[in-house]
């Protein structure tokens, strides 16, 4: 149970009149004892100071809980102000009550003019007098209840101005008995007072209610309580998608069609009198909750009934409307005059009038004046209110702070980060980090104030000259088991897997259904029906999801099980001419001879009692080993490698040097050199696509007319005429500078200065690039044009001699 006020009970909690009784107690006393019982229910959570900010479809509600606004400055310190509650309810009961309407008359916006219910609440609930000489102006019985309340507390009520001819209800009779002066059939035509209301002027209404007659009477007062009737608070109902209908008798919009399991009860459903509320409450709850009876079935309720009703949206004045100020929207200072002007200007729709006049666009969102705006439009243009409709009620019902919506998704919590098991070592060794997906990866390790360029050049050089070490833990790893594991890989990758010997590794390209490169990585056959697949860092979760999806929906006949083990393994990749010597020191028991442990193979090993997997695979083109160990030993393995490599000046290198090293070898990075529009043929990797296999994901698309086109963009190497000129990644490539419009052939995808070749190198995609080897092209930049030549994308060690060096 949520209540926006600091305690539950609504306005009945301070209804103290003897005319309103439930079970022979005053309504407030009866309610208080019921609330006491409610609070003792163990299965009911009551949240006060909590307002439903929004009621979305399917009974999803957002509530704003005010935690500290009621506390004093010191108590608030360091505490959360508001909390957002997300509620998914099976059933919702709305009891949001009704909002009192103001009256629209000349000069109705002066300090001291307030809603009659507010005057009453100040007096009865807060113990505050709103004025010493109070007058009420009303069209219904509510003001009489307020007047009696004030009178009983000894607060002077000067008079009641009532636009009705008469009323015979009990409460009016009691008011008359108390000697309060009532002006029937009268209206306020003007008010006076600057910082405080001083006086009101009233006149008698004509028979047709269109004008005033007789002489003006002035009443001195400092508070005017206005009571223009009640508007059911149907905002939450309509936010949830509910449709309203107009009730002509009460001139109110009421819930009509419920879009979800919900019910509106009480005055938000148009029941304004105590006896009706309680009677309808029990019937509608029994129906809604499908229960036989409620505790409120046969309550004895006494109350005064409002028998005569009269509503005038815009009250007449003795002056021409052009000379009056009857405010409709008290926040935006829009008057009835403005609304009439909008109609004269030709605006008919309520949505247009709203935007022309700004009526209903204040922070109260028209809760006070919108009904009057509608009424004035209907009266002026002779349309029925029911046909006019309302403006849309949008969330939030009551304002809430941005902070409440955002919650703790700020600062460090704005986005999730993932760390590798070696992260602490990278931090201790002053690595700069790069975000790769959600991972924090070591980017480069600057020493002695090196710039990024200097550090990357040093790291890249060291990896080829002696030894380098890279934290490769972020690569996705999927454990694949089952009797159909080989067949599964055949269908997933473009190349063939059945004949891969146990203990060997193979590089694979994975395509999307459209034939475009989706992911790549090395997969190792651990046993007959057991593989470990690696994926790209960023693609890991998507690949896992896609493969699992295929197994469950497309290939349920395959006996294959996938388990993500990305986080279980830490991976240290040691590369360079001295990598074998280093590994030999770290795992002395492992036979590292090329015969026993050749390139693209794997061995199980142990470091102490910790088992690990060693793969001899390479992304740098160097002789290279990857040690995969249980994550909690990852940092220790890394440190062991660093220690063992000390004599070889082992150099930790980050992702930037890794990118440079692989670019020297022309190895692609999916996502950098591909963008979802590259086929294996576009990458000049025809060799990896099996011609013999019956099928694999994307195969069919590789034979579409568009994918076999010769003039697709293809991956090539680029060499700049000036070896020191490093191209910008993304730069456009053209063949003719003077042709207009300039024909763009492609763009640079990767570009570095290679310390090992001592020149600038780049990878690019160029239209028909495959057949353009040696061709000179141009890269026009802002202040210069760079000349480049198309080359083979493998720049370094074309014979792959270093893999076995």
């Amino acid at each position, binding site marked *: 149970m949520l209540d926006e006020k600091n305690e539950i009970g609504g306005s009945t909690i301070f209804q103290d009149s003897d005319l309103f009784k439930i079970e022979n107690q005053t309504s407030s006393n009866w309610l208080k004892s019921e609330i006491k019982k409610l609070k003792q229910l163990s299965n009911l959570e009551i949240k006060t100071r909590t307002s439903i900010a929004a009621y979305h479809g399917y009974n999803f509600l957002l509530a704003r809980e005010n935690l500290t606004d009621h506390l004093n400055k010191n108590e608030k310190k360091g505490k*959360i102000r508001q909390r957002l509650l*997300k509620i*998914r309810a099976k059933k919702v009961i709305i009891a949001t009550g009704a909002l009192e309407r103001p009256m629209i008359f000349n000069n109705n916006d002066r300090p001291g003019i307030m809603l009659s219910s507010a005057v009453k609440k100040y007096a009865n609930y807060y113990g505050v007098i709103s004025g010493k000489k109070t007058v009420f102006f009303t069209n219904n019985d509510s003001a009489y209840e307020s007047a009696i309340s004030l009178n009983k507390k000894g607060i002077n009520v000067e008079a009641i101005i009532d636009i009705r001819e008469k009323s015979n209800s009990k409460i009016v009779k009691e008011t008359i008995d108390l000697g309060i002066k009532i002006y029937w059939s009268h209206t306020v035509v003007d008010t006076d007072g600057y910082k405080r209301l001083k006086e009101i002027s009233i006149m008698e209404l004509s028979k047709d209610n269109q004008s005033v007659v007789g002489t003006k009477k002035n009443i001195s007062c400092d508070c005017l309580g206005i009571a223009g009737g009640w508007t059911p608070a149907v905002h939450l109902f309509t936010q949830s998608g509910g449709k309203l209908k107009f009730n002509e008798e009460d001139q109110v919009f009421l819930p009509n069609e419920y879009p979800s399991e919900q019910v509106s009860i009480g005055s938000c459903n148009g029941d304004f009198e105590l006896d009706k509320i309680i009677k309808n409450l029990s019937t509608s709850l029994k129906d809604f909750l499908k229960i036989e009876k409620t505790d409120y079935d046969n309550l004895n309720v006494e109350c005064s009934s409002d028998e005569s009703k009269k509503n005038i949206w815009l009250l007449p004045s003795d002056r021409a409307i052009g000379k009056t100020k009857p405010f409709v929207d008290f926040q935006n200072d829009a008057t009835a005059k403005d609304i009439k002007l909008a109609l004269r200007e030709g605006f008919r729709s309520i949505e247009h009038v709203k935007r022309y006049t700004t009526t209903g666009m204040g922070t109260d969102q028209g809760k006070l004046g919108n009904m009057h705006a509608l009424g004035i439009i209907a009266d002026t243009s002779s349309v029925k209110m029911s046909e006019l409709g309302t403006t849309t009620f949008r969330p939030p019902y009551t304002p809430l702070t941005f902070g409440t919506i955002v919650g*703790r998704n700020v600062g*460090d*919590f704005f986005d*999730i*980060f*993932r*760390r*590798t*098991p070696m992260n*602490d070592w990278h931090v201790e060794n002053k690595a700069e980090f790069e975000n790769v997906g959600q*991972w924090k990866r070591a980017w480069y390790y600057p020493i002695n104030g090196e710039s990024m360029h200097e550090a990357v050049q040093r790291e890249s050089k060291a990896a080829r000259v002696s030894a380098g070490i890279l934290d490769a833990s*972020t690569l996705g790893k999927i*454990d694949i*088991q*089952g*009797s159909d594991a080989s067949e599964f890989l055949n269908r997933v990758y473009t190349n063939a897997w059945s004949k891969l010997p146990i203990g060997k590794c193979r590089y694979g390209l994975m395509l999307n259904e459209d034939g475009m490169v989706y992911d790549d990585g090395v997969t190792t056959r651990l*046993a007959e*029906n*057991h593989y470990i697949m690696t994926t790209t860092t960023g693609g890991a979760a998507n690949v896992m999801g896609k493969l699992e999806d295929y197994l469950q929906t497309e290939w349920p006949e395959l*006996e294959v*099980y996938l*388990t*993500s*083990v*990305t*986080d*279980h*393994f830490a991976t240290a990749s040691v590369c360079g001419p001295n990598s074998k010597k280093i590994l030999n020191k770290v795992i002395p028991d492992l036979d590292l001879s090329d015969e026993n442990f050749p390139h693209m193979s794997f061995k199980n090993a142990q*470091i*102490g*009692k*910790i*088992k690990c997997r060693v793969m001899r695979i390479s992304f740098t083109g160097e002789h290279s080993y990857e040690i995969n*160990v*249980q*994550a*909690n*030993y*990852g*940092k*220790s*393995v890394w*440190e*062991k490698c660093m220690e063992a490599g000390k004599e070889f000046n082992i150099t930790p290198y980050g992702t930037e040097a890794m990118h440079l090293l692989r670019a020297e070898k022309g190895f692609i990075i999916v996502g950098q050199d591909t963008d979802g529009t590259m086929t294996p043929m576009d990458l000049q990797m025809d060799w990896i696509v099996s011609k013999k296999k019956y099928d694999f994901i994307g195969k069919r698309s590789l034979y579409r007319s568009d994918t076999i086109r010769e003039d697709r963009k293809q991956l090539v190497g680029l060499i700049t005429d000036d070896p020191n000129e490093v191209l910008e990644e993304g730069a456009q490539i053209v063949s003719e500078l003077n042709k207009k419009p300039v024909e763009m052939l492609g763009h640079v995808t990767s570009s570095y200065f290679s310390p090992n070749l001592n020149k600038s190198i780049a990878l690019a995609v160029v239209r028909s690039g495959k057949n353009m080897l040696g061709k000179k092209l141009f890269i026009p930049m802002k202040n210069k044009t760079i000349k480049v030549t198309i080359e083979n994308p493998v720049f370094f060690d074309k014979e792959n001699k270093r893999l076995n060096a």
Partner: protein
Amino acid sequence: MLNYNSPIKENKNYSDLTIKEIYPVMKLNIRGKKREFFTNVGKTLNMILPTEANTSTTSDKLTSIWLGPDEWMIFSNNIIEKGDNNYELENLLFSNISKNNFGSISDVTDQFVMINLEGKKIFELLSSGCPFNFNEFKKKKGSSTQTILNHIDVIIHHNDSNNVNLFVRRSFSEHLWSWINDAASRL
């Protein structure tokens, strides 16, 4: 000898809430749907895998959590030895299940960090960052769920009254740990 480094380096206490990492705990992901899979797992583990969604079963030494119709995670109830990751049970299961093509056995000991929450405010804490409805969950010991907590995938296991195990992928654990502490300090 290799040193052991768990990602969470501290225990935290709040009023009515204690949070700590439990380690090392052996965790295995087991998958299968054949009849032979169930009989072999039953014999090897001496326990029956839960087949009702979002439940778990416990023996003296092991707990198994339902993750899917053909997937479970089993973990050791007690802490295992540091510095040795040759698990007899894993080897036994692997030769009985994987090698016979009845299903799959994968070591996920360090795939997940196990965070234990203890105290009266557990569900208040979890609810502050999780869309899951814990009303039924908290009534039943052994219930489990796979959901998200502060946008991070987690497995939540109702260990005992006012005692919950949270399994989170190791790489996310430090972020989740700091979020849990932030949330706990604001309850």
